[in-house]
Structures are given as structure tokens and as C-alpha cells.
């Protein structure tokens, strides 16, 4: 099999004398691992960073084989954010979450688009943490565990949705959720509308929300903890007063 596709590098590790095994999130083919000949070389190694964008040519003799890939770098990649510690933590966390959550060789174009939108948002320090939350919510949706934020699960009301049920992922209105508010997850307004103002505490609530469902539905069943990179990101955001 052979294909050419747009891709983001999620992770790379040295393999053999000069190669590397690279995990890629491709636009139309999903997550693929591939051997990149010369991936450990001076020319290619600096490029094989989480978040780097490339045009990938993937080849495998038979289906199911690891396969090899050649990569043509596109754009600046993560180098654009080398001066921004928070953005670097965000890139590492996004790559780790995508690498850990997405199954291999299953097309998830929505995940690619969400990752692409997030990488574009890193240039805007004031909004990207909220975009990161939307990226994780998008991943959940893409994997079949999307949050249902259209109406209140209890009353059917479409206004004043401020909670999410930790069991079902469905929104709950303020009135209906009041008696159970200690057990419900907070629903930040920016998840309901892209035009909503970002208030203090919204990003923290959003990350707690998506983190809960990633853990419960994706990483937990795989017997894996949430990636350390995501925990680090939360620590960095907390230290910077951005949660």
C-alpha cells in the first residue's frame, strides 16, 4: 500500500543505526507509525519534533506491515513557539493526548482538523488553552464519546446549561443540576459557543471536563493513565494563572 497525505508528527524515537520510528497523525488515514530512514540524521532529526507538519509518503509492502515513510517538512513547525514555554507544553500535551487516544490506522479526519486548528491557535496565547479544551472535546467526539451539550439531560431546556453529567457526558441546566452540583462537572460557556467570553476558571473547568472523559472512556479502558505531558500542561497553566 502507498499513500501521500498531510500529517503532523506526534512522536519520534531513534531506531537502528540512523533511522527513527515516527508516529504521525495524517489528514485522511488517521494515526500511522512508520520507519523513517535517516530519521536520526542531522538533516531530519531536528524536524522530527511533536507538532511538526509534513507531507508524508507512506509505503508498506503488505497491509499491517510497519511500513516506511518519507517526510517533506511544511512550515516552521514547533520552532515558531520556542520562546513560549506554555505553548511548548501545549504542543507536547496535544501530541501525547492524540498519540495515546487515537487508534492506529483508523481514519479520523476530525482529529487532524482539530490538531491543525490547535497548532494555528498557539500563536494566540490568550485563547489557545480554550482551543486545547475544544481539541480534546473534538477528539472525544471523533472517537465516539462526544459530549452532548445540546440540551439539559433532565429537563430538555436549552438555556443556562452549566453542568455536565460525569456519567453520560450530557449537559445539565443550572436549575436541574442544583441539587447534585457537587457531583456534576462544570461546563464552561466557550464549549457551548465559540463567541462566549473566556472567564477566569473556564479553562480549568474545561480541562477537568475533557480530562474526566478522556480518562473514563479512552485511557482508562486501555489501562493507561492520562499522558504525563497533559498533567505537566495543567501544572504550567496553573503556575501561570491561566486555569
Amino acid at each position, binding site marked *: 500500500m502507498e499513500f501521500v497525505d498531510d500529517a503532523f508528527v506526534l512522536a519520534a524515537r531513534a531506531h537502528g543505526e540512523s533511522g527513527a520510528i515516527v508516529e504521525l497523525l495524517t489528514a485522511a488515514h488517521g494515526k500511522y507509525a512508520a520507519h523513517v530512514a535517516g530519521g536520526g540524521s542531522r538533516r531530519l532529526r531536528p*524536524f522530527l519534533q511533536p507538532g511538526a507538519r509534513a507531507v508524508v509518503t507512506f509505503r508498506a509492502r503488505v497491509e499491517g506491515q510497519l511500513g516506511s515513510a518519507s517526510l517533506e*517538512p511544511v512550515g*516552521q*513547525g514547533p520552532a515558531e513557539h520556542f520562546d513560549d*514555554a506554555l505553548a511548548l507544553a501545549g504542543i507536547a500535551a496535544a501530541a501525547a493526548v492524540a498519540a495515546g487516544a487515537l487508534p492506529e490506522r483508523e481514519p479520523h479526519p476530525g482529529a487532524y482538523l482539530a490538531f491543525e486548528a490547535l497548532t494555528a491557535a498557539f500563536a494566540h496565547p490568550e485563547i489557545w488553552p480554550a482551543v486545547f479544551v475544544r481539541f480534546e472535546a473534538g477528539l472525544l467526539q471523533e472517537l465516539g464519546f462526544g459530549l452532548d451539550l445540546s440540551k439539559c439531560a433532565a429537563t430538555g431546556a436549552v438555556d443556562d446549561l452549566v453542568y455536565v453529567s460525569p456519567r453520560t457526558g450530557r449537559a445539565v441546566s443550572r436549575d436541574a443540576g442544583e441539587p447534585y452540583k457537587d457531583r456534576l462537572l462544570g461546563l464552561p460557556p466557550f464549549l457551548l459557543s465559540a463567541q462566549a467570553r473566556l472567564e477566569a476558571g473556564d479553562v480549568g473547568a474545561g480541562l477537568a471536563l475533557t480530562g474526566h472523559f478522556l480518562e473514563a472512556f479512552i485511557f482508562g479502558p486501555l489501562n493507561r493513565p492520562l499522558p504525563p505531558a497533559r498533567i505537566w500542561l495543567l501544572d504550567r497553566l496553573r503556575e501561570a494563572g491561566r486555569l
Partner: protein
Amino acid sequence: MAASAGPEIERLIGLLSKLPGLGPRSARRAALALLKRREQLLLPLSDALSEAAARVKTCQVCGSLDTQDPCAICADPARDGTLICVVEEVGALWAMERAGAFRGRYHVLGGLLSALDGVGPDALRIGPLVSRAAEEGVREVILALPATVDGQTTAHYLADRLAGAGVSVTMLARGVPVGGELDWLDDGTIAQAMRARRPA
């Protein structure tokens, strides 16, 4: 694998193949070269390895490797003790020394923070660096770390940790390498070089 080789040769090949840059095939070639040139290569190498294993130690001050502790650089009074250059590994220290562009002292971190690989601050020699930076007379800490996501994440983390030490914290410049032609450079390097431009 060299199925006909004896267990001793297999063991030699196996150990050589664990060296960086050597896979099983190169390790087999290296083993063969050693065995063919027993007097000129194999025995001297064996002696050198034994001697290195017995004598080389880690400098308690900077984390470099030397036969003495403190290492020759830390013990050299001609070195500028007001400057500390932080490097990832001893290989980077050797590269800096080869360049001859720095006459201060070093601090070897022993790796980089890596969120993807789960390497945290406790796994690196960060505490000793903060202590050294707080010593009297130190005026600048230079973070000579790789221009990678992990390298720059580590640099930012160190800059934060050193903020209270009362020293100037600087990073190496990024941009066009000597002999580099723009046509062959990646977009990231060109953009970094453009941002770091200076008056001609």
C-alpha cells in the same frame, strides 16, 4: 546474525550493537575488524576500556566525566567561575570545548525534561545547578540546550527555577549556521534567524 560465530563473538557483537550509532550489522563489521587486528586494536581497546572503567568518574561539581573529581575544568583556576554553561550531556560539553568559544565552567544536566517520555525535573541535576548559581560570584548562567521542543521546554523551566538566584540567565542564539545556505534551510530556522536579526 552470525549464526556460525561462537558465543564469545556473539556476545561481543551484541554488546557493540548497543553502542549509539551501531546496529547489528555495523557491530558485526566492528567486531570482525577488532578480531582481525588483535594486536593493533582489540587488545589496546580492551586495555583502554578497563582503564576507563576503573578511573573515569563523574565530577561531583558539574557532572562531567574525568579521571579526577572535581574535573579538570572545575579545578582549573584560569576558568571564569562567574559563568556557568548548562549542557544536556557530556557530549555537548565536549562540543563546546572543541569550539573553544567558552572559558567558563559547565553544568551537565544529564538529559532533558520530556513530557512525552515522562522525564521530570527530579531525574535531572537541576537542584545542584540552582545551588551553584546561588553561589557568590556567579553572574551568568548560559543555557546551551538543543533547539528542540524538549530542549526549549527545559530551558524555560530552568530560567524559571533560576529566577530567584540573582544571576543573568541567557540562551544560545538560534539561526543560520556557519556555511548554511538559505536555500537549504528549513522554514523554522529561517524564521528564527529573521526574528533574531541584528544591525549589520
